[in-house]
């Protein structure tokens, strides 16, 4: 019972930590974090997102996105 509480506390601490390190802190530019093709963390420049039609075509064709 005690272990369960400690594990949950750790989980919560971990989640709070991840929330901070993934979404806060100093950022180098206005990039958006997007998950692409099951890859967890890829930075795609906002410009790329806005001109995404070409990229969609590439994705559909199964080609990797070129950053």
């Amino acid at each position, binding site marked *: 019972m005690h272990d369960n509480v400690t594990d949950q506390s750790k989980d*919560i*601490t*971990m989640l*709070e*930590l*991840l929330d*901070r*390190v*993934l*979404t*806060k*802190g*100093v*950022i*180098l*530019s206005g990039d958006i*974090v997007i998950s692409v093709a099951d*890859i*967890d*963390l*890829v*930075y795609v420049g906002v410009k790329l997102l806005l001109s995404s039609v070409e990229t969609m075509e590439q994705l559909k064709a199964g080609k990797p996105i070129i950053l």
Partner: protein
Amino acid sequence: MEKMIYSILSAKRNPEKLNALLVGMKGISDSDLCAVSFDEITAIVSDFKRADLIADRSNAIEYAGVIENLAQQFTVLPMRYGSVMESAELINKMLERNYHEFQQNLQKVENKYEFGLKIFCDSEKLKSELRIKSEADIQTPEKPATGIKNSVYKDYVDKKLKEHRLEELMLTYVDSVIAKITGYLDRLNTINKFKKMASDTNIIDAVFLLDKERKDALIHVTEDLKNQYPVLNFVLTGPWPPYNFVEIAIK
């Protein structure tokens, strides 16, 4: 070789301490940490491979661990996970361009930690309490004397209006809680940030920046708040490096 940046700090008072610390630490994927400086500002970096960036959350946790260790000995500005630049020279130039902002921010957070307070409540329960309190006040537009029959559209507006008024009541309630918190924190010299209604149950998501030594005082404030609001749940976490208090638009 691309560099991952962990944080910005000033080691002018104690460069040897920094070097000793870096030697005893590792970055993500067992990389070595080093310092890239411009004048009195230093970026803590490591080499890294693109593949590491797109790995699972354990790398992000390691990265945060580096920041935590640095934060115990220095005043740091934490970078967001994934902060990468192409070379040390470019980092050096970036430090130069943003020198003033970094200095200002380091000064702002010196000797301070961040703490998070999340306040939860059963939204439905609160709403029904508020609804009961205000049922008397809610007036829907009067039916006109000409006897225009009730339309489905008018009913729709009535429904939406009631929802809207209830939301306004919720917000007023949340504002009053925030005012109370701000009042309690007045003497602790904090910087406060509040997010309202982050979710259905998380009515307030707050972060505070305050002197390290005042941690216990903050815990007491939270206990007092719980006594004031027995129906709400309070969760205080910390201390954290100042992730939420470093707003810099990097040039």
